[in-house]
């Protein structure tokens, strides 16, 4: 590459130096070095919370504008909001009911299986970042709160995603619709085992991998998590099977992407 003036020779030198530094940093970060991990956690937390603070006036302005809009809304519209909240509550209870029933069925089938007790942590979604690689959510709980990489993120007892990276007081999570997300599941009454993977073409469908050679689904069969090597707790709803005909089916996620202000983390002690 040709750089003519002395100033540009400096630019060339700097570019090369910074690319080398970036490469070194990349490989050190990737190696999960325990000393670098502390630095990374601190930098990530500092950047994430600084960004939240910088963005807070804008978020505050948006909240005020929403409050003013709500104030001038008619009583009927406010009641509509209450109805939506109640509907959400009903959905949550319904999902919990289905999930508990599935867990109970499983425990009936498998006698002497170890019953894992899991702790849950309520967390706030600080940020949602999207790029060509993945859609990331940043939450306000980290390693110091007992969060580990791989912990499931749920909402209304429906699996939303899982933690992929932790810091001290914050974590990154990906959604189950991401192609890099892999979740062990069971499907329907016959409890077929499979792995749910995000669909690269659409967020409204999930791919099923490692299905048994012979299987038969019913329309609306629930897909729920299964506990293999303590990766996921048993019985969290993931999605439903949609059957167009016998050979034409797909899995559809159950989570509502628009309601991800607060989530619950299930901490898995590994």
């Amino acid at each position: 590459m040709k750089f003519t003036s002395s100033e540009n020779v400096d630019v060339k030198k700097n570019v090369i130096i910074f690319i080398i530094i970036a490469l070194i940093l990349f490989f050190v970060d990737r190696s999960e070095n325990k000393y670098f991990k502390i630095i990374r956690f601190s930098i990530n937390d500092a950047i994430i919370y600084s960004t939240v603070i910088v963005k807070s006036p804008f978020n505050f302005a948006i909240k005020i504008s929403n409050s003013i809009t709500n104030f001038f809304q008619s009583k009927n519209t406010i009641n509509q909001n209450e109805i939506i909240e109640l509907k959400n509550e009903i959905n949550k209870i319904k999902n919990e009911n289905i999930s508990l029933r599935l867990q109970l069925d499983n425990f009936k089938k498998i006698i002497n299986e170890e019953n894992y007790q899991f702790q849950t942590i309520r967390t706030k979604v600080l940020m949602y970042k999207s790029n060509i690689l993945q859609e990331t959510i940043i939450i306000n709980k980290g390693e110091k709160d007992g969060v580990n990489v791989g912990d499931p993120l749920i909402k209304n007892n429906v699996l939303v995603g899982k933690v992929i990276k932790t810091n001290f007081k914050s974590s990154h999570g990906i959604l189950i619709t991401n192609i890099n997300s892999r979740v062990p599941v069971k499907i329907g009454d016959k409890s077929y085992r499979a792995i749910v993977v995000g669909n690269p073409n659409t967020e409204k469908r999930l791919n099923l991998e490692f299905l048994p050679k012979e299987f038969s689904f019913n329309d609306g069969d629930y897909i729920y998590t299964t506990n293999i090597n303590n990766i996921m707790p048993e019985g969290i709803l993931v999605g439903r099977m949609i059957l167009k005909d016998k050979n034409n089916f797909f899995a559809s996620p159950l989570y509502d992407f628009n309601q991800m202000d607060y989530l619950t983390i299930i901490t898995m002690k590994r």
Partner: protein
Amino acid sequence: MFTFFKKYIASIFLLVSVIAGSVNIDILNKSISYYFNLQLILIYLFKISNPSLNFGKGVYLFLISIINDSLNGLFFGTSAILYFIVFAVAAFQSTIKLRSIFISEWFSFGLSLILAYLAYYALISFSGKDLIFLNIFINFSFTLIGYPLLWFIIPKSYLNNAIR
């Protein structure tokens, strides 16, 4: 104050674009940052408009890339490599040109994007993550198309006065 702002406008624009990337603006159920990479356009556009711009000898560019990596959950250094590839091509292009020819600038921007996305693909593959080729293609195409739009939108006085 205004002179200071003008001097650092490139780094400020870049930093704001990184932070604002977390604001949810969706087009066809996809976030706006899925479609194009504003940071790469800004780096190229500012450097090509003012060859003496060096982003604090590259330090600001590096720090902004770290912020971007942190917010996107990427390994540190991933964005820096992309940013410096585009910056290097823009620096090279700005030294060889005698006068501003938009088409040749746009073409070399396309070339810098190809190099940057190839590096990105290699780094992500090396991280053991899957990347959808279609996503890269869409992002590449809209970033390339976005260049002339920003070239028209951002006033030339801002582009030429940014020196730090």
